[in-house]
């Protein structure tokens, strides 16, 4: 019989992990793990650490700088939260397209990023908003920009004995606009072929002050677009050459070919989405 531990408080959970880091499997909403353990029963772990009862990992709190979202908060709670809808609409939107309602009722934001699928639907919004992670260990917590979390295919920065405890997301800059889109075969429940979130800040003269992109399903991990962001910085929309953007998208992403799409399709869609994110709401689109 497998062992199941469901502590109420974070220190207790961290203590358990520190005492026996190896054999424990962390389970939150279980929407990824239950599929995995059912499909591969021989890999069913013996000892489970159930973090769904940890109070410190639950809920959303508004602070002066932004919002704290506990790692075990459900996607349903996130998509419904009035402040998230008002200030971080791309996250509300991504939570709302992560599977269907019965999935969102169970799936957690922490589980979505820790599962580390290259197609994780909430990753782009978290990257574009510049989220930071609070990572807990029984010796103390550390902070990590979410952009540094994914280190390779299904490999994260989490070390033995650590739990992702919360997300901190700053308010977007005042004059910024967001763009989110998931391209899949069907609205709900489909794994994304490509998804994107962009947060673009312009000054009163229309110069781009900052541009942050997050994309999923275009590389081995969810990723940002550093050279596109670099190119846009300080430029006015009318001075942006689409061909230059396309070339930089090609540098920043490394799309794979799989059962859902070809490499060429993903590169083309990614480029078009980036261009749409940049030019939306601008009349003076420059053609190359």
């Amino acid at each position, binding site marked *: 019989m497998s*062992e199941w531990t469901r502590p109420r408080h974070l220190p207790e959970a961290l203590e358990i992990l520190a005492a026996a880091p190896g054999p424990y499997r962390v389970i939150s909403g279980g929407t990824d793990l239950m599929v995995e353990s059912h499909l591969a029963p021989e890999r069913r772990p013996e000892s489970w650490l159930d973090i769904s009862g940890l109070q410190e990992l639950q809920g959303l709190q508004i602070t002066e700088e932004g919002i704290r979202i506990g790692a075990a908060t459900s996607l349903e709670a996130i998509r419904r939260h009035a402040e998230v809808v008002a200030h971080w609409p791309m996250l509300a939107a991504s939570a709302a397209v992560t599977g269907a309602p019965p999935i969102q009722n169970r799936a957690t934001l922490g589980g979505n990023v820790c599962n580390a699928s290259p197609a994780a639907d909430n990753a782009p919004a978290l990257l574009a908003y510049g989220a930071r992670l609070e990572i807990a260990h029984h010796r103390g917590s550390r902070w990590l920009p979410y952009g540094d979390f994914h280190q390779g295919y299904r490999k994260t920065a989490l070390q033995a004995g650590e739990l992702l405890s919360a997300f901190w997301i700053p308010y977007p800059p005042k004059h910024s606009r967001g763009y989110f889109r998931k391209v899949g075969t069907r609205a709900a429940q489909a794994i994304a072929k490509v998804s994107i979130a962009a947060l673009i800040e312009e000054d009163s003269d229309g110069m781009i002050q900052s541009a942050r992109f997050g994309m999923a399903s275009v590389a081995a991990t969810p990723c940002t677009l550093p050279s596109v962001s670099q190119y846009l910085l300080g430029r006015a929309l009318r001075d942006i050459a689409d061909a230059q953007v396309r070339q930089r998208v090609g540098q920043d992403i490394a799309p794979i070919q799989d059962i859902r799409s070809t490499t060429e399709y993903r590169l083309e869609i990614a480029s078009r989405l980036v261009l749409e994110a940049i030019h939306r709401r601008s009349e003076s689109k420059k053609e190359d």
Partner: protein
Amino acid sequence: MPTTMRINGKAFQSSSAPNARLLDVLRNECDLKGTKEGCGEGECGACAVLVNGKLVNSCLVPLGQMEQAEITTVEGLPEDSALARAFVQCGATQCGICTPGMMLAATALLMEHANPTLEEIRWGLSGNLCRCTGYGRIYAAIAQAAGGSADV
């Protein structure tokens, strides 16, 4: 450690392993066979039940998380209800495999939106697959149960 929960209003204690699927506990231990297994991967909603009033796929729920939970299966829904009558009248069921899950998804939807729009009905049922009806009749049944027109 046994897990104690309430299923359709009655206290129940399960001695299955904590990583057992709620689906198997319901079907095999409680003999509640109305909850179906379609895909076993969260995709089809045939196994849908309400846990503390929320729609979930019981094939993805480990028993270990069900301590003190309030669970409603199709057997716990009233036998005669506007929803049940509407399903019959609209021909919203054919082979019937999806019907329990559809009824629970509809129940969850109607708890939230007493008068759902077609868009809300589609969204509320988007995790439930039906191979037979083509969905139109199911949407119509829910609209009718809500007191709206069946003309979807």
